[in-house]
């Protein structure tokens, strides 16, 4: 019988095309909308994770105590080995080393003497490992105003405003003067490969981004790192998994009394993100609920209409002696079929729209300032597992419910009246 009904749906465009179209569009909007909500609320989390907290972060205990002050004298030593151990023990995460430092950027004249100088905040991140995600994570490619990413050791990105202020061009040399991990004087020359705009005034005034190995060399931090950040490979923060990881990792070092023993924090523990996470969960839940509810009403309406427009047909079928129960059952099965087709199509379309948006995002901020902004003003969708089923709630359930309600009319009226009164 299902095959028979299916044929009917295919052949009768009135029965199939419009409802399927409406359901598809509705489900598409629901899927896209819910992904969008998820995206907006996880945006803030992502910015924090990518820039500073990671999904989990490992520092020395002493460093963690003073983390606000970039205390590289308290950095983790033997970081390379630790990263290897982490990769073996927790392969589900990508582990990266970073160094966040402060120093003086000095611009030389022809004689190699100081022409200008200014304080700068610096990052050492992994630019050169094959497959490194770090530049993307920091949104560097999108923030470059001129020049390019460092292509080889010894190259650096500096803030655009700093470059403008001192008339520094691509290919010029700047010297970083800072403090080594042991308190000694750190000197290093860098060739400017590009200039970036962060969109934060404090950073735009003076900043330098170099490769982690350059930072280690410059700051006498051989095999040391200020921070080791862990990112779940699927790019999603999972609070429960992170907690488990943190508990497990910190337990290994529990008995150590060394202030340089590693300590793992998860994203929740940093920058006051715990509250934000809780809030975003509840808000996005409420918004998605409203969305699904609204869509359900629309599709219920569609179901109702679908049933109503066929009263004439039902009248004839009743007149021909078909049982009310049978008509009602076929109506429901048809609506299940239509709802399922529409939901599948709509979900597929929704995912097709949400996935690229997850990758590339939509930018609103850059239009404001012109040029890239490192603090993302780019909005992205986020495709979670719920994206695959959430469309079926309005698509299938509401459609069937609508049809079921409109079909009640079949029972309510006498055959002849139904035939006559309800005919178009």
């Amino acid at each position, binding site marked *: 019988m299902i095959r028979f009904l299916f044929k009917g749906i295919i052949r009768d465009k009135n029965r199939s095309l419009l409802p399927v179209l409406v359901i598809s569009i509705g489900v598409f909007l629901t899927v896209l909308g819910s992904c969008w909500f998820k995206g907006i609320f996880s945006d803030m989390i992502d910015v924090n994770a990518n820039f500073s907290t990671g999904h989990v972060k490992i520092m020395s205990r002493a460093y963690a105590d003073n983390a606000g002050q970039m205390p590289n004298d308290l950095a983790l030593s033997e970081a390379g080995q630790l990263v290897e151990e982490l990769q073996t023990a927790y392969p589900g995460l990508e582990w990266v080393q970073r160094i966040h430092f402060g120093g003086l950027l000095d611009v030389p004249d022809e004689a190699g003497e100081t022409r200008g100088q200014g304080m700068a905040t610096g990052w050492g991140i992994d630019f050169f490992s094959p497959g490194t995600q770090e530049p993307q994570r920091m949104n560097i490619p999108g923030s470059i105003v001129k020049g390019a990413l460092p292509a080889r050791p010894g190259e650096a990105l500096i803030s655009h405003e700093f470059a403008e202020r001192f008339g520094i061009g691509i290919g010029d040399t700047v010297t970083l003067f800072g403090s080594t991990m042991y308190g000694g004087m750190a000197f290093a020359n860098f060739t400017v490969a590009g200039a970036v705009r962060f969109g934060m005034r404090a950073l735009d005034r003076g900043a330098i981004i170099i490769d982690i190995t350059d930072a280690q060399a410059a700051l006498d931090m051989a095999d040391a790192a200020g921070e080791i950040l862990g990112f779940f490979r699927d790019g999603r923060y999972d609070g429960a998994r992170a907690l488990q990881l943190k508990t497990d990792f910190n337990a290994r070092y529990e008995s150590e009394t060394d202030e340089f023993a590693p300590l793992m924090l998860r994203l929740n523990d940093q920058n006051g993100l715990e509250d934000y996470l809780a809030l975003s969960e509840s808000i996005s839940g409420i918004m998605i609920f409203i969305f699904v509810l609204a869509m359900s009403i629309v599709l*219920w309406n569609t179901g109702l209409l679908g049933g109503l427009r066929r009263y004439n047909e039902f009248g004839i079928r009743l007149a021909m002696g078909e049982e009310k129960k049978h008509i009602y059952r076929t109506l429901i099965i048809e609506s299940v079929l239509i709802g399922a087709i529409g939901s599948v199509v709509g979900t597929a379309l929704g995912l097709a729209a949400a996935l690229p948006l997850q990758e590339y995002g939509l930018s609103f901020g850059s239009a404001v300032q012109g040029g890239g902004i490192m603090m993302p003003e780019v909005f992205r969708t986020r495709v979670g597992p719920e994206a695959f089923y959430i469309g079926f709630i309005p698509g299938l359930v509401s459609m069937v419910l609508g049809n079921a309600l409109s079909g009640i009319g079949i029972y309510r009226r006498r055959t002849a009246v139904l035939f006559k009164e309800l005919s178009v």
Partner: protein
Amino acid sequence: MLAIKLAFKNIIGAGFRTFLNIAVLSFAFVVIIWHNGVIDGWNKQARRDTIEWEIGRGQLWHPTFDPLDFLSYQDAHAPLSETVQALVEEGQLTPILIAQASAFPQGRMQGVILKGIDPGQKILKIPSGLLEARNGQIPALIGSRMADDIRMKEGDQLLIRWRDKNGTFDALEVIIAGVFDCNVPTIDGGQIWLPLESLRQMLNMPGEATLLVAGENYTGGDAEPWVFRSQDYLLADLDLIIQSKKGGGAIIYGLLLVIALLAIFDTQVLSIFRRQKEIGTYIALGMTRWQVVGIFTVEGSVYSILAILLGALYGAPLLWYTAKVGWALPAASTDMGISIAERIYPVYGAGLIAATIVLVVLASTIVSFLPARKIARLNPTDALKGKIQ
């Protein structure tokens, strides 16, 4: 007029289905207003907080003062001229003196910024009254972020070391006279507020200031050597962020609106399909086809009017409630240096509501018109017979 009357009758006649359509549209309507209200509320609140706590009606800066360059603080100070001093005494300006120093909480050294403020000032909301002298020891005021950072609470002693104008070292213990809670991170993190006169003495800078904050009545611009920085200048960063947040939100309610419009569109298609005889009759009675299109289009827009009424019915108390109670936000993202309140009170302006009404009515009129256009191509006799394809 006839069109509107007919439209109302037809729509009301459709009963339950109409209600469903209207309900969805009213959802979109209320959410649009709510979302924009939250952003406007945040914007207003952030601006208000920043104005009340930090920038007043603008600030007069020492020409070499650069808030982002701590090293500039050492030279960015000057005595107040008589005219400026007179304005201070009238309460139009309040001077603030800024210097770099080191604090030693728990034996660690930490760079801090000292800010001197007149305990009697009325322009900023900082509870400077707590800085009134108490038995000989210099009182200090810190924000809650700073208090967390250096693990200090009210009544604790904090050792600070600084160098006066001539570079002479000095140090003493101040007593934390209060910890204030405020949404403006730029007056909190890494800063210690002291009584202006104490700081002037400490720095050996009698009668001097780094900047002056203007109060309600301040009208003057620059006042040699001070450079006037307007509110717009001082709020530029904040404006930028708000603007982009609006963009992200527009997508949300855009989608919701599309859903609602989809419902109207669907209903319109069906009603035109089912009411061919009626359409034929209208034309037979002498209406032009475009008049009939008008009737059906107006019917669609009447949905939006009903939706707005319905939205007003449940939305008004709901929105009023949210505006009163506010929306709690955690203290996240304060590290980004942007003022975000812990509780945002949405602000629903008349302009916002009017614009939303226009948007909803216009949009639903357009989607009602699209299927109704079909009528214009209709052959009246076919329509009367009920043949429409």
